[in-house]
């Protein structure tokens, strides 16, 4: 099979690499139609899927920026947990909703930017820098809440999960974030620079691009997305939990990879990410609807990620 893949690379592989997310999603939706037509395609399930999509979807859009630069961010789950605790604590202690939201967005963006700066200046691998951040931020979340959960939030953030035109606000936020990210990546100098950095760092350097600021921008955009996701998460779970978001970085990275974006950087787009996130959420929902054990489901997810990464790497090494 490897031989035939190599000889047809130009047409089939390129086509597959570009549309693998859509193909996978199509297959999955077809499977859902065969296995659970009465439940999966019910309107209430559509609302359910959109509700579940918001947090991983927004995080995956942020992750797209980082992965396009050729980096990776393992700290997003921990950052979500920390921001979840901060938002809950602030709201419980009586701070207004608007200042709390602005503060969370600021902290998220700032921590993202800081990580991008550290990666640029120290020239350490993003994997290592963000692994360290993953540990530290998680610890910080526990310290911030004194090892406990923060409850008593009530319905202060309920407006984030209420439906408008039948679609929850959280899902609207995700759609807007995806659209804005698409425009930024395709239509702005910054966006094109992100692709240039990920495509060929040396070439980008010789072309005189300010790599540090591109990286800081990409990681900051990621942090901002995590903060938005944390707000939606808090609205949905109505408390602050220092263990919140554990392993969410894996879902975000999976969505990006399934969406056809190369972990080597420089290729793919945010619409692919959207499809990838939709794929993962639909898979989760279908597995629950069909009563498949959650740990069996984890096995499937791992296998799918492996296949997606394999596809992306054909002909690129």
């Amino acid at each position: 099979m490897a031989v035939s893949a190599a000889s047809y690379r130009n047409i089939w592989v390129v086509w597959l690499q570009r549309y693998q997310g859509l193909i996978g999603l199509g297959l999955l939706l077809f499977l859902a139609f065969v296995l659970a037509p009465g439940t999966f395609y019910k309107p209430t399930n559509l609302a359910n899927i959109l509700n579940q999509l918001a947090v991983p979807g927004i995080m995956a859009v942020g992750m797209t920026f980082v992965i396009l630069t050729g980096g990776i961010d393992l700290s997003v789950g921990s950052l979500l947990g920390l921001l979840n605790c901060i938002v809950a604590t602030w709201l419980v202690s009586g701070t207004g909703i608007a200042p709390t939201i602005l503060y969370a967005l600021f902290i998220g963006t700032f921590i993202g930017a800081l990580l991008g700066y550290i990666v640029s200046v120290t020239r350490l691998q993003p994997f290592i820098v963000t692994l360290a951040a993953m540990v530290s931020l998680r610890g910080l979340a526990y310290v911030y809440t004194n090892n406990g959960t923060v409850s008593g939030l009530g319905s202060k953030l309920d407006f984030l999960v209420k439906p408008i035109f039948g679609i929850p606000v959280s899902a609207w936020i995700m759609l807007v974030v995806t659209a804005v990210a698409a425009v930024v990546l395709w239509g702005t100098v910054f966006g094109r620079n992100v692709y240039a950095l990920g495509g060929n760092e040396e070439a980008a350097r010789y072309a005189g691009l300010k790599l540090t600021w591109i990286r800081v921008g990409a990681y900051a955009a990621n942090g901002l997305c995590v903060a938005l996701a944390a707000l939606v998460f808090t609205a949905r779970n109505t408390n602050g939990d220092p263990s919140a978001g554990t392993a969410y970085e894996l879902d975000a990275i999976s969505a990006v990879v399934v969406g056809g974006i190369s972990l080597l950087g420089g290729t793919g787009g945010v619409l692919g990410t959207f499809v990838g996130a939709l794929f993962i959420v639909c898979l989760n929902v279908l597995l629950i609807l069909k009563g498949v054990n959650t740990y069996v489901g984890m096995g499937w997810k791992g296998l799918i990620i492996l296949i997606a990464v394999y596809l992306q790497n054909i002909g690129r090494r």
Partner: protein
Amino acid sequence: MKFGIGLLAALLMVGCSKGGDTAGTTGGAAPGGEKPLVVFSQANSQDPWRKVFDAETKAAADKHKDHIDFDMQDAGGDAAKQNNIVDTFLVRNPKVLLISPTETSVQSSIEKAFDAGVHVILLDRAIDSEKFTALIGGDNVDIGRQAGEYVAKRLNGKGTVLMIQGIAQATPTKDRRSGFMEVMAKNPGIKVIEGDDCGYQRQKARSYMETFLQKGEKIDCVYAHNDEMAIGARLAWDAANPSGGTAPVFVGIDACQQEVVDLIKAGKLDATFKYPTPGAAGVELAMKLIGGEKPDSKKIVLPTEIVTKDTADAYLTANPNLAK
């Protein structure tokens, strides 16, 4: 690669249909003319007690499989995941939701289910809301009290007890402690040493006990807040006293493992108190609710039961689903 994806799809289909067996035909068939659906959302299935809890719930549901469809999912201790599971369960229009919440933040989806007309039966853990049909669980204060009475009797009201404690801020720890201390207050001849928080873990209790025994202080009884810690303490005592000698009385709580009952039979532990798993009672209540009956009360307390050398065999026969 097309072949690869095709293969994946085929595998996925096999996996799903296999898992679907337990769910019967609910996935596909049209509504009406179906068996009512009972779903069970478990907080996590990792510790031995919850493994027994799962097995007994499933066994109880199997008994009624001609009348209900049953499906369960484990949230792995993640509240956000449990919210997603409950929301997705609701898509299938269940009649009854059995749920052991990971923490109070699962409340929003539980309330949503209740508002949608689903009978909600909380198992073992409560929420900060009145939007549920019934709560079924054990009474840890009473268990602590009974353990205290057993210890007082064994020591004839005189001696020293080392209490090895569970996770400090957890409700079961507080209850198992306060029930025990209540009885100890009536027995001034017994001195209680409040041991460390050993997190309900065998290994931690063992290390703590090893250090404690270094002090050479004489103790007549070890009361541990669960069996795992009682076992850990006993292992430490055996290691420190290779030639035997008169061991203190070892008392644990939970009685959900085969190993504990075996140790009681072997005389290594003296007694344990059953912390009842609420799953089977939950399924029985679900059957009643489906039949149109109302629960007898909103809070249903399951009784505990002492296991000693004398009752060990009878206990094993009566509880076939103990964790191995």
